[in-house]
């Protein structure tokens, strides 16, 4: 057990900090804020490219993919440094964090060159098409069909909740290629350019407000996708799905830590009830960091405990939700104001996380719903961590 990082890790952090100090784009350059998960303004694209070119975008990757072969612990301090400065990692989070990562893990060399690198260099943006109207928590029941026809797949079906799809150039799309196989065994993954004929995207607003348009329904009508866009082996999409979400999960808990930190910095407790909730959030934030770093150290030893990460997601997402509910409640009638900002907007932050307490509270449900709901996480903890019998 150690209270501080090794010198070699601190050197790494210092090098990154120096890079940030020198290259962070000034506010004056940021003429426009991102409007969706796949809307990356020109200035933010330049910034992401600069990070890629210097090996700081995803330091764990090799240099040709925007990294510097950093260790897991170094990747952790990289994210900690961003989080400490409240710098949003990428304005195309699913593209960089999940789609490109899946392509790098499961894609061909050609796919990496043609799609992963442009996503990482913010030349194109990507969204993630997993969920469907009939397939939420039970993702494996997805029904969007893809049928091989010569050297193309023909895709028919519908996705929903596809964040940023209306601004995305490509969708990593989970489709059923073998309807006769058991449900986990007949799924494949296709990279579908949104400009392909037959792809219709219908963006819709979220609970935050009619201006907050990130969700999409995506319809596929006889969409012809080159067979070369198959990511990973045919019918092994479930493995890619677990891999994709795995990428997201190893350090996903850190984002809940950020929400808690923001609360701790921005909330001014007024009175004993507020103070009590505030202290609880401090405990949660520390515990999350401690447990997260233990999980990280374990993964760094090559003993990644995937089910154990459910503990972190559950703890972090629910703690943030409790804290933010308290902040909203404590604001009284002022909390009704919407979308009055309660913290100054700076261009490098995710604007969505700086909104009113209402907005922050409402967004905390993304944490408890997306990426496996809290109920699903509890079942995973009970069955796979604690070994309770399945029904």
């Amino acid at each position, binding site marked *: 057990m150690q209270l501080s990082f090794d010198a070699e890790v601190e050197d790494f952090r210092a090098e990154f900090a120096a890079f940030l100090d020198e290259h962070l784009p000034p506010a004056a350059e940021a003429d426009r804020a991102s409007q969706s998960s796949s809307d990356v303004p020109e200035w933010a694209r330049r910034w992401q490219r600069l990070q890629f070119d210097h090996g700081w975008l995803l330091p764990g990757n090799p240099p040709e993919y925007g990294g510097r072969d950093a260790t897991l612990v170094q990747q952790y301090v990289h994210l900690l440094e961003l989080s400490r400065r409240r710098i949003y990692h990428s304005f195309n989070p699913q593209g960089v964090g999940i789609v490109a990562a899946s392509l790098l893990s499961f894609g061909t060399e050609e796919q990496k060159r043609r799609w992963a690198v442009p996503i990482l260099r913010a030349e194109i943006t990507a969204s993630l098409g997993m969920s469907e109207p009939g397939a939420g928590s039970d993702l494996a029941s997805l029904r969007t069909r893809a049928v091989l026809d010569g050297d193309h797949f023909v895709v028919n079906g519908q996705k929903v909740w596809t964040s940023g799809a209306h601004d995305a150039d490509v969708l990593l799309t989970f489709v059923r290629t073998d309807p006769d196989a058991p449900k986990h065994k007949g799924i494949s993954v296709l990279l579908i350019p949104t400009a392909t004929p037959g792809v219709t995207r219908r963006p819709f607003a979220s609970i935050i407000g009619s201006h907050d348009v990130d969700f999409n329904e995506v319809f596929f009508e006889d969409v012809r996708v080159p067979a070369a866009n198959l990511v990973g082996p045919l019918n092994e999409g479930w493995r890619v799905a677990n891999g994709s979400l795995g990428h997201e999960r190893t350090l996903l808990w850190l984002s809940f830590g950020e929400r808690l930190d923001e609360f701790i910095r921005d909330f001014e407790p007024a009175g004993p009830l507020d103070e009590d909730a505030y202290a609880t959030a401090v405990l949660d934030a*520390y515990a999350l960091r*401690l447990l997260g770093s233990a999980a990280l150290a374990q993964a760094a030893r090559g003993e990644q405990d995937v089910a154990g990460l459910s503990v972190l997601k559950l703890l972090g997402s629910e703690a943030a939700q409790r804290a933010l509910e308290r902040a909203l409640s404590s604001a009284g009638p002022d909390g009704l104001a919407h979308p009055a900002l309660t913290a100054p907007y700076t261009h490098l932050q995710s604007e969505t996380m700086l909104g009113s307490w209402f907005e922050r509270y409402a967004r905390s449900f993304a944490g408890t719903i997306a990426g496996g709901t809290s109920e699903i996480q509890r079942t995973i903890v*009970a069955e796979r961590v604690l070994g309770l019998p399945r029904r």
Partner: protein
Amino acid sequence: MLFEFDPDQRLWQGSVREVVAKECPPALVRAVADDGADTVALWKVYAGLGWTELTDPAEAVELAIVLEELGRATDPTPYLATMTQFAPLAPGAGEPERTGAAVLDGVTARRDGRGWVLEGTARHVLDGDRADRLAVVTGEGVFVVDAAEVTATRAAVFDPVLHVADVAFGGVRVGQEQRTGADPGRARHIALAGMAMTMVGACRRILDLTLEHVRTRHQFGAPIGSFQAVQHKAADMHVAVERAKALAYFAALTIAADDPRRRVAAAMAKAAAGECQSLVVRHGLQLFGAMGFTWENDLQFALKRALAGEQLLGGAAEHRALIAKECHAVEL
């Protein structure tokens, strides 16, 4: 920071577990509760293994590992009081084979010639009725007093294995050589972390017993542990234990490193342990059904140890109030 046991600590934990399983089994705890069985032999085992010499704050994590296991086993000896309450107030007292307790308030020291006279009655002193020595905190400093000098009365408390006493000082004369120069503030951090660790251990035991019960108890033709309402309670218990355990070890680590965060870390550990026991006791007892409501079931020992910990050294709400005043940013 990186928060993981190193290989030596894992080894230590393994050997402590083995000893505790063999020397402090549930049957012994039961015998102490039902028949007032003697715990001196068990104490001698701990002393013989060198566990009572873990008084250097630098060994706080190793001590915490012992305390977690003893909390899990509902240790019936005065180990917790000796190691985390007496020893930090009496550095250099030596004689690690002798037990100790701490008198934290209720006693005044009056200057008298070259020494002092101690007066007053301290309430709720952990192991005050059976410790060989007492470290007494007064406005004039901390004094070490032999148990023979005071009158202690054990109180009847809900935890049948716990010793809590009222200790009366009727003009006890002490001299400069009994004054320890310990800093009660620092000692308190160790006491808080120790109590938190004990509670974490007790909560782990409740969770273990509960898991065993819901795996084997069948209703409606299925193990009750396959019902989601049961599973989700168990999952929440696990999260609460992991959270409290992380903060308890963090406190131990800040003590070992003499890190300035140890004051807040100790408060966080005690607060989290209190929150943990609240959830774990409630769900654990609930999931046992009527079986958990009996004297005969060993669940009671861990439950009561966890609940008793909340009553001592300030409850969760008191510690949260301190944390709210002192914490405005998380830097790890």
